[in-house]
């Protein structure tokens, strides 16, 4: 018996199914990442507000959706929301009635809660003097946020954002519990058909690994582009082409 018997023929045969699974995983990553980010901004502003009426609910949201394991959130949305009569009758049932809708809701809320903290940490890292100086120059609060605080916060928080995105991708592997055939579910299905414990799971592992590393490399380029003004890159950067962030 060899150490890791990988059945090459089976791996080749299951490639189309694995790619279909990867597509679902990518879809379930990209959409919640966007929804979560959009939710994170208003919640983060509420969280940072000096008014308790705003900051307390935001804080409870973050503690709950960050502290609860993703698996439980998924169960809660998938099994729990169906219990509410009003929701079952209402128009939102299109969303909560399907496993995809539930998974996207649970993943988005979880990601939003994490992003609130990432965003808050990055915004707090911006030196206060810069904001005060901008205010002294009479720049409007909206413009200070858009052109002073956010560009800096993005640079400070990029690493944390990358970590959250990577762990989020790995987190999506649980959506098979609500009958979605993502990459993990495809691998499991092939295992159940063939009883080959290594080939499908190791193939899926390769796909996940590749996906995560593509994202990682993308973030690296993004970070390099954001910091293109810094000393080492200034030499390499082409002159004449200026891009305002």
């Amino acid at each position, binding site marked *: 018996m060899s150490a890791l018997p990988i059945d090459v023929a089976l791996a080749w045969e299951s490639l189309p199914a694995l790619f279909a699974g990867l597509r679902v995983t990518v879809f379930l990553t990209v959409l919640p990442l966007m929804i979560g980010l959009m939710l994170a901004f208003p919640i983060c502003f509420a969280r940072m507000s000096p008014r308790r009426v705003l900051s307390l609910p935001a804080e409870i949201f973050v503690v709950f959706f960050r502290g609860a394991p993703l698996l*439980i959130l998924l169960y809660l949305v998938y*099994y729990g929301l169906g219990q509410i009569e009003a929701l079952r009758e209402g128009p939102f049932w299109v969303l909560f009635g399907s496993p995809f809708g539930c998974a996207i809701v649970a993943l988005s809320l979880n990601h939003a809660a994490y992003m609130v903290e990432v965003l808050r940490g990055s915004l707090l890292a911006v030196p206060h003097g810069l904001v005060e100086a901008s205010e002294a120059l009479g720049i409007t609060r909206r413009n200070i946020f858009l052109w002073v605080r956010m560009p800096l916060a993005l640079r400070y928080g990029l690493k944390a954002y990358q970590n959250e995105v990577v762990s989020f991708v790995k987190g999506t592997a649980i959506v098979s519990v609500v009958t979605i055939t993502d990459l993990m579910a495809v691998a499991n299905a092939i295992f159940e058909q063939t009883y080959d*414990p290594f080939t499908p799971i190791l193939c899926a592992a390769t796909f996940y690994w590749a996906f995560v590393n593509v994202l990682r490399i993308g973030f690296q380029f993004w970070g390099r582009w954001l910091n293109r003004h810094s000393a080492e890159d200034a030499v390499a950067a082409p002159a004449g082409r200026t891009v305002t962030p």
Partner: protein
Amino acid sequence: MTNLSPADLAGYLRQLGEGALITLELFLTSFALAFTLGVAIGVATLSRNRIIRAAWRVYASIFMGVPSLLVIFLIFYGGSAMLGAVLGEFGSRIDISPFGAGVAALGIVYAAYIAELVRGAIENLPRGQFEGARALAIPPLIMWGRVILPQVMRLALPGLVNVWSFMLKETPLVSLAGLQDLVAAAKIAAGATKEPFVFFIATALVFIAFSAASLWVANRLEARLDRGQRRAPRSPSRAEA
């Protein structure tokens, strides 16, 4: 609103309690394994040997780039065959329990994260600590145990707390391999009583409460480990600290 009789509720609560104990046991065992492995790997991979460094990078890249759930399934399904390959006939007859697979998988995955923290902390330690220990002719084992690692733990504590709470949130994954833990018990109770909302929220709150409690302990621990640093430095040179 609810159709639960007190007797039923007591029965489900007992099941949830038993499940919570299993979850806790799983979590603590896995963390202990990850911590031990992580510190050992972190120290070992500081070696200049290129093969060891390359092996570390491959290991870290693989287990940081793959979902824990996948590692759990790999060990749960393939563990017997892997043991068989390593230990021969005897190994293949060992049945892998969901608990064992969970501990092994979470231990191996999170050891990578802990090893990275430990490596970072050791590299942040002033060189003088090693040189001083060597100048005093302190044997390597005592140098690591009494001089370096205690300081490393202080530096790595915030990161370790992160790993701790992140790992706690991944322990429910083992229920998908069939472990009768808190989440599995909650799912059974939710299905049987048709009250999923109550049971899942309660389960989530158990996790949040445990997380909050351990954060409190961690803050106390941090304050204690920092007690040598707390007094404002009299001289600006930090190398002496």
